[in-house]
């Protein structure tokens, strides 16, 4: 039976084909860019990502390079910037040198790689495992839901840093183990977020329609429900990256995370914390780097939440 379809209205054609009109992502981006805080966060993050990509080009020395072989360098020397009046007879070090005669600026720049990697990997791991648990819990319901959620309650009862310390004393210190520990500790957050979304979405008409059309349970979950439940997960994940960076820095500060000589901001501070009163630059610069990184993700996360929360729609 052939019918001649009426031409669709232009606006609808635009929306269906993704031309003009608006999509969730375009709307979100526009809303995010409209907020001052989120814009600051996005800018900071861009600078950070660029720093991490071009770390080798930006830094004048290697992150673990002992400068005694190449120049007349002093231990824990204060920052020396020629443009700001530091005598040119002294070697230039934007953020000074550390206790092992290394250039602090080069180490801080290279540290951005570790921190970004830590942030994205731990949160990615937590989101992946948490989503699987949350999706099963919310979709299957009943006893399975009850058991899984009580298990998540148990994990949530431990302060994240303390549980991570306990896990690391078992696994042994190191970057991979620290990421694993922080990741495990963060799982319940994402499991809860996805479970809540699944619970509300699975009752909606379009899911019922798909089920009526014969879609399998797995298909419903993967193709219909999860894509629509991603928004709160992205918001929580962005905020979570800031927390993960802070926690890994704290673990490294305590000597349980990244091990020397790798340039990680927390461990740089931990190594030199007793020099605070004689060489504050060794604490200050890595400290600023951690703070700005966490700030970037927090501001962006807040902005995303405001942009994606329909209750706040302007």
């Amino acid at each position, binding site marked *: 039976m052939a019918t001649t379809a009426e031409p669709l209205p232009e606006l609808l054609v635009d929306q269906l084909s993704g031309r003009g009109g608006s999509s969730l992502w375009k709307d979100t981006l526009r809303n995010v860019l409209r907020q001052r805080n989120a814009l600051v966060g996005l800018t900071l993050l861009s600078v950070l990502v660029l720093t991490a990509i071009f770390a080798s080009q930006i830094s004048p020395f290697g992150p673990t390079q002992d400068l005694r072989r190449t120049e007349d360098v002093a231990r824990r020397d204060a920052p020396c910037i020629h443009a700001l009046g530091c005598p040119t007879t002294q070697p230039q070090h934007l953020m000074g040198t550390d206790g092992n005669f290394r250039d602090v600026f080069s180490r801080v720049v290279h540290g951005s790689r570790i921190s970004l990697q830590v942030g994205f990997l731990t949160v990615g791991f937590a989101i992946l495992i948490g989503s699987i648990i949350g999706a099963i819990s919310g979709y299957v319901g009943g006893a399975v839901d009850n058991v899984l959620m*009580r298990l998540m309650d148990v994990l949530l*009862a*431990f302060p994240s840093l303390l549980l991570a310390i306990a896990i690391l*004393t*078992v696994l042994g210190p190191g970057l991979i183990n620290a990421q694993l520990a922080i990741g495990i500790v963060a799982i319940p957050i994402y499991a809860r977020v996805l479970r809540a979304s699944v619970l509300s979405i699975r009752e909606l008409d379009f899911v019922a329609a798909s089920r009526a059309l014969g879609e399998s349970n797995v298909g419903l979950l993967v193709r219909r429900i999860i894509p629509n439940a991603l928004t709160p997960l992205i918001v929580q994940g962005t905020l979570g990256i800031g927390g993960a960076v802070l926690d890994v820095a704290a673990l490294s500060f305590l000597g349980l995370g990244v091990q020397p000589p790798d340039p990680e901001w*927390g461990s740089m501070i931990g190594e030199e*914390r007793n020099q*605070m009163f004689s060489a504050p630059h060794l604490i200050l610069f890595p*400290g600023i780097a951690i*703070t700005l990184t966490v700030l970037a993700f927090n501001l962006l996360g807040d902005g995303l939440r405001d942009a994606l929360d329909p209750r706040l729609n302007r």
Partner: protein
Amino acid sequence: MTRYILRRILVSLPVLFGIVFIVFALARVLPGDPCTAALGERTNPATCALYNARIGLDKPIPEQFAIYLGDIARGDLGTSTKYGRPVTTILLERLPLTVELGFFALTLAIVVGVPLGVVSAMRRNSIIDVATMMVANLGVSIPVFVLGLLLAYVFGVILKDTPLALPPSGRLTAGTTVHPLATVWGLQGLGGPPRAILDFVSNMYTFNAILTGNLALLGNVLSHLLLPAIALGTIPLAIVARITRSSLLDVLGQDFVRTARAKGARERRVVLRHGLGNAMLPVVTIIGLQLGGLLSGAILTETIFRLGGVGTAIFEAVESRDYSIIQAFSLIVAVAFLVVNLVVDLSYAKLDPRVRLS
């Protein structure tokens, strides 16, 4: 209400069991032989067999778990491998300082955070609001250990010879002695739990100083506690300020507030009487949730300011791989967290009937 309380407690029991099980399991999967970990590398197999038999490691796992549960019920949390003393004793000696520090940090967070949030909400988008929220954003982003070290540097080095100078480390000025309350009040003969409680209070030096009216000691203790309390309290402060602001803004947009304004109530009265009371529920919940963060923050804060509380004990335990202390403290903190949130939930239900009816 009674039914709600019972149901809520009943739901917490499996979680409590799970917490104990996780702490137990973590200790049992420790890499390496617990015997060589405790007695050193050069122990011979015979000694190890004796050791394992003594601490029950030769028994099946379920039986070990049952024994562990029994030990906990008796208040026995194991023996520190580093100090060779019961962990409970070590924690009881160290806990007063940590409780004191946490108390001041949280007080600071509430006393400063709530008014800041209220002012920000009342003067929305003003300079005060923007500045407060900027500081709050920075406050949750700066690591506790960086803030602590910077505070120590500013108040201990830069402002050293000014009236604003504060001691950058330690709990008391060197040479100060604190007399236990039991001695001061002539209660040396007291024993058992009352004595333990008295000693606990006695070791919280601020309370000791207040109870004995020793103003010099009070000033001494407070000047040492101020910087650590600021370092530890900044994150909760920032969170409390943000939640107070957003919760109050939410409430101020509701109909009953419009009614209050319409009948001619002053803005101050509208905000403080009609708004704040209703806006406090989420704030109370958030304060309850800060406990865990405060205790993990204490590990970093006490280490930086060289205060000998539980936080320092954890740090030392991490360095010397003294797992029993970490295990015991994790257990105590997780259980405390569970109890505090149970209390918060129950008070929430009392304040808001909708919670217990849902």
